[in-house]
């Protein structure tokens, strides 16, 4: 049983396109996150949702819009993709969001051509 799953695992697209990445967790956690890991392996938080409510937006361009239809799902939509968006995007979840272990998904490798 996969705890945190993401789809797709790989995404290759052209500049200017719009794409979405989906994330689901079956751990019953209240908080979910999106992270971006660049080519130098630097892992940086983008967003956090607690029980469907946005609680962290870490100076991410407006082209990135997270959506949480319920507390088990957090999707990431990216408009007008740019070359610099190429990275691995990780979804994570934690029980409550403060001083908690975070459980990461397998990642989605996005390549913008």
């Amino acid at each position, binding site marked *: 049983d996969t705890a*945190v799953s993401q789809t797709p695992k790989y995404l290759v697209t052209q500049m200017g396109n719009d794409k979405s990445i989906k994330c689901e967790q079956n751990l019953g956690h209240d*908080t979910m996150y999106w992270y971006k890991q660049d080519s*130098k*392996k*630097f*892992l*940086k*938080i983008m967003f*956090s949702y607690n029980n469907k409510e946005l*609680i*962290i937006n*870490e100076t991410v361009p407006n082209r990135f819009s997270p959506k949480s239809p319920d507390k088990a799902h957090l999707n990431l939509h990216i408009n007008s993709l740019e070359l610099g968006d190429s990275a691995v995007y*990780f979804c*994570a979840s934690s029980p409550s*969001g*403060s*001083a*908690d*272990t*975070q*459980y*990461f*998904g*397998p*990642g989605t490798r996005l390549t913008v051509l």
Partner: protein
Amino acid sequence: SQKIEQNSEALNIQEGKTATLTCNYTNYSPAYLQWYRQDPGRGPVFLLLIRENEKEKRKERLKVTFDTTLKQSLFHITASQPADSATYLCALDGGGSTLGRLYFGRGTQLTVWP
């Protein structure tokens, strides 16, 4: 500016030795610090969490220390094995109003050779 620095991007040690990884931070006041392991092509996996009022934590062959005066955490793997080869990430929360946000270092790639 705020920084999290993990010493050396790569660390190579012989099997059976103790690996010691360092995490130094600047301009953060974390309430806790975590260590994660990341294997190629996979997401980070939690290993240990240590709080600001704790000096040391152990789990099997792993030990982490946290010195808030030095602003440093040390992560030790004793009796290292080739299976311990991975990238190890230090992460801390921002403290205060940013509690719950994890900020990661760039990681140290550990290779344990037989």
